[in-house]
């Protein structure tokens, strides 16, 4: 269905080609997963399928890409619209119209399909993706998962035989991601659509893949093979696979269900042992639900309610954070996680209740003073970057924080070694950019660090590095609050987990107690080994005294 023959792609202003001599054949009806580090050329590979590379982006493509017999050399993207459907990373930026139904019909209108066909296909697609209740809804009122499903639906109505998705679940909470993946699964099974999918969150998708293609990103050839073959030797793998590796299971389990069937044997081996590492052991002691503000706390919210427009985003929230504590803030999209973080830095003023950060209300602090009490890395780290080069950004951060010149640069070297001084900050990879913003925020040495969705767009290696940074900050006494959908990260670094739902705290306690047994928020290891209290591969490996 999709054929790459000796494809080399070089962008106009690049010295080296992004992809070299790629040979790839995806058969009809296959769900093919593309993995690789950030910047390895995954997106380029995906966008070459419908000719966006090079027709739209510029650059040169040597070799041949054919889809369903059509050569992208002679067919620009619009001429392939009836064969390939492309869904980008952020569905919002791809929407042309303003309501669900119109958006689904847009592609068909462009192809000039007759009215009765359009009407029928819109209805079919609404049913297929479970969108019928949202048909008249304006697009901006949709949740993340709904939006992603509408984006998929909008390319499906032209009945393409190939669907290309670039990180469809990376911005979604676990339930919404499952929603989207279930829809994809249905397309592959019922309609025989060929799917090419790039995703960093292997743990979510690898079990659905028929084949995995790994893009090394350094000019070497692609590896393609069954998920098991690729993951057996891959340096990065989802936790369930790593658990399989250290337990020496063969064949390797790809899904929690596979692993669960082998789990009794492992549980027996682990019986009597207790997780010695991991956050539950080195984190703070269990915290009482209601804490009064004392000066040992870095920050405290007392019965705080925050109103955004007509929506009560936080309702009567109590939360206290102590030095050296790592708190994971979980909950579905729109549950109030970001609002809580924004309240802690004074971007939102509570309607009722009091907020203390370092003994003061953050909304009344001058920005210059606030910096020394609390630092926030927002969901879009790039929001904090204004300068033209990394060096200028670091110098500005030193000046803003009144720190000694060079402080920020030294921090950056620790977080992201070897970053070029002259690079424009906005052109960095996601991981590098996050590192730079973290360095900027940490320059003022705040006792409380807030991270909003830090793992969005990070590959496994960047995530591992982030986990290390958070752990060492906590060890030095900095309190860290991270709002995240990434249950694996939370399990690894957070000693305490707070779950928000519709602006209310529904659970607050040691991570172990909160996430074990929760279908949405349990990490894979916990799902496999439940009811035993194991959360991470590292803890299991240590107990078994093998290296992961």
């Amino acid at each position, binding site marked *: 269905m999709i054929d790459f023959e000796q494809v080399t792609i070089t962008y106009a202003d690049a010295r080296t080609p992004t992809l070299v001599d790629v040979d790839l054949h995806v058969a009809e009806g296959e769900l093919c997963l593309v993995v690789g580090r950030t910047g390895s050329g995954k997106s380029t590979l995906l966008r070459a399928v*419908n000719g*966006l590379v090079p027709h*739209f982006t510029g650059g040169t493509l040597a070799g041949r890409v054919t889809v369903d017999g059509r050569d992208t050399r002679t067919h*620009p*993207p*619009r*001429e*392939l*619209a009836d064969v*390939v*459907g*492309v869904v*980008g990373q*952020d569905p919002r*930026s*791809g*929407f*042309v*119209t*303003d309501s669900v*139904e119109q958006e689904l*019909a*847009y*592609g068909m*209108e*462009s192809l*000039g399909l007759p*009215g009765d066909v*359009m*009407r029928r296909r*819109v209805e079919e697609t609404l049913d297929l993706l479970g969108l019928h*209740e949202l048909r*008249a809804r*304006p697009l901006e009122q949709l949740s993340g998962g709904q939006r992603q499903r509408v984006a998929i639906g*909008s*390319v499906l109505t*032209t009945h393409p035989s190939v669907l290309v998705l670039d990180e469809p679940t990376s911005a979604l909470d676990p*339930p919404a991601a499952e929603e989207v993946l279930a829809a994809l699964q249905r397309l592959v099974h019922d309609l025989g659509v060929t799917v090419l999918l790039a995703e960093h969150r292997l743990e979510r998708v690898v079990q659905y893949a028929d084949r995995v293609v790994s893009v090394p990103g350094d000019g070497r050839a692609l590896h393609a093979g069954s998920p098991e073959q690729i993951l057996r030797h891959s340096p990065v793998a989802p936790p369930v696979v790593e658990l399989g590796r250290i337990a020496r299971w063969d064949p390797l389990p790809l899904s929690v269900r596979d692993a669960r069937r082998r789990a009794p044997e492992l549980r027996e081996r682990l019986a009597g042992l207790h997780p010695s590492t991991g956050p539950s052991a080195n984190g703070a002691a269990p915290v009482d639900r209601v804490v009064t503000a004392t000066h040992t706390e870095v920050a405290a919210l007392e019965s705080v309610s925050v109103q955004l427009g007509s929506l009560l985003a936080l309702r009567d929230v109590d939360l206290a954070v102590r030095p050296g504590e790592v708190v994971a803030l979980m909950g*579905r999209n729109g549950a109030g996680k970001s609002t809580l973080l924004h309240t802690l830095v004074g*971007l939102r003023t509570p309607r009722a209740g009091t907020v203390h950060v370092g003994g003061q209300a953050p909304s009344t602090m001058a*920005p*210059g003073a606030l*910096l020394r009490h609390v*630092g*926030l890395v*927002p969901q879009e780290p790039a929001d*904090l*970057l*204004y300068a033209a080069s990394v060096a200028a950004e670091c110098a*500005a*951060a030193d000046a*803003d*924080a009144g720190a000694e010149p060079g402080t920020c640069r030294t921090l950056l070297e620790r977080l992201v070694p070897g970053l070029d001084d002259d690079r424009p900050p*906005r052109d960095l990879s996601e991981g590098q950019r996050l590192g730079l913003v973290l360095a900027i*925020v940490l320059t*003022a040495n705040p006792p409380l660090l807030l991270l909003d969705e830090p793992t969005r767009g990070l590959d496994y290696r960047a995530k591992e590095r982030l986990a290390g940074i958070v752990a060492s900050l906590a060890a030095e006494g900095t309190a860290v609050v991270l709002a995240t959908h990434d249950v694996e990260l939370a399990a690894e670094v957070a000693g305490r987990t707070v779950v928000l*739902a519709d602006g209310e705290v529904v659970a607050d306690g040691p991570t172990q107690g909160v996430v074990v047994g*929760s*279908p*949405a928020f349990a990490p894979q290891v916990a799902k496999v080994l439940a009811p035993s209290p194991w959360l991470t591969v590292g803890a299991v490996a240590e107990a078994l005294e093998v290296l992961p």
Partner: protein
Amino acid sequence: MLTGRTALLPRQLHPGAWWLWALGLVAAATRTLNPLLLLLILAAAAYVVTARRTDAPWARSFAVFFKLALVVLAVRFVAQVLLGVAAGETVLVTLPQLPLPDWAAGVAVGGAVTLESVVAAFTDGLQLATILACIGAANALANPKRLLAAVPAALYEVGVAVVVALSFAPSLVTSVQRIRAARRLRGRPDRGLRSLVSVALPVLEEALERSIALAASMDSRGYGRRAEVSAATRRLTGTSTLLGLLGIAVGIYGVLDATSPPVLGLPTLLAGLVLAGGGLVLGGRRAVRTRYRPDPWTAPEWITAGSGLAAAVLVIVGGVIAPEALAPSTHPLVVPPLPLLPTVGVLLALLPAWLTPPPELLVRDVRRERAVAATSTSTKVGT
């Protein structure tokens, strides 16, 4: 043809019909300075809006326009009191006057305020306010984007550009707010003009990235596909469109300028319209697009557009018969009459309030639905 009963099933009326109706009222308002008639037009527009608007975001625009109209009225009134030269004898108050040099004759700062000039200013302002309210009514009743979707196929690209620009503006505002707020996190002031200037670069970069992503998405979804058209047809399209536009320009000039020969007037305008229309139809052949669920144009649309037109025509005819009734004298002050024909015309414009299908409520109660969704998720989690 739809029967009377199915024609009135709830649906959205064709946006073009609402615009024609509103433009008819605007035309009527421009022809009269009679405050009673103007208030009647205002009332008719407001009544129809309340009866037939949806709960979509744009439906709130009538209130916005109405407030704007009140501001216009107030500004006109204050300007007359402070700056206008008083006419008439009924002095209400005398403000202290600022002596002005000779070349500023016609402007007086302060001075006597007469009832006559205040009433004249009020009717002037009322006319402008009524026109604004009518435009607001059209905005509230018709989705502006649906109206753009109804443009001829040849103008489709222009329509898309406008739609994209319309949805772009609000997102630009949100990103300015977000990035400006982020300045606080770097310890810099997040208020004041300087903070606004410094976020320009990131905001523009984001806007550019977003438009490139949108263009890529549109391209891969078949935007800009073209049917093969012969070179002769293309040439004919270009020629007839160009000649048509030229004819329209000359024709309008001829109609407005009383001294030009009559041939340059209406006949040229009509010929120009026909040619330009032909050009659009021919140009539409290149587009392969079809339209999903196009708004039908049936009896209620005819009634709506017709009632607006009737209001305009009857007011104009009424003006020809009795000009003084449409522009009652303010000097000397007379009680404005209520001329029969124009009044009937404006009352006709009320018809759409009953003779059009009621709107479907587009946006259902979102919060309630969200609550339902939340409970269903939590039960799933609980089991």
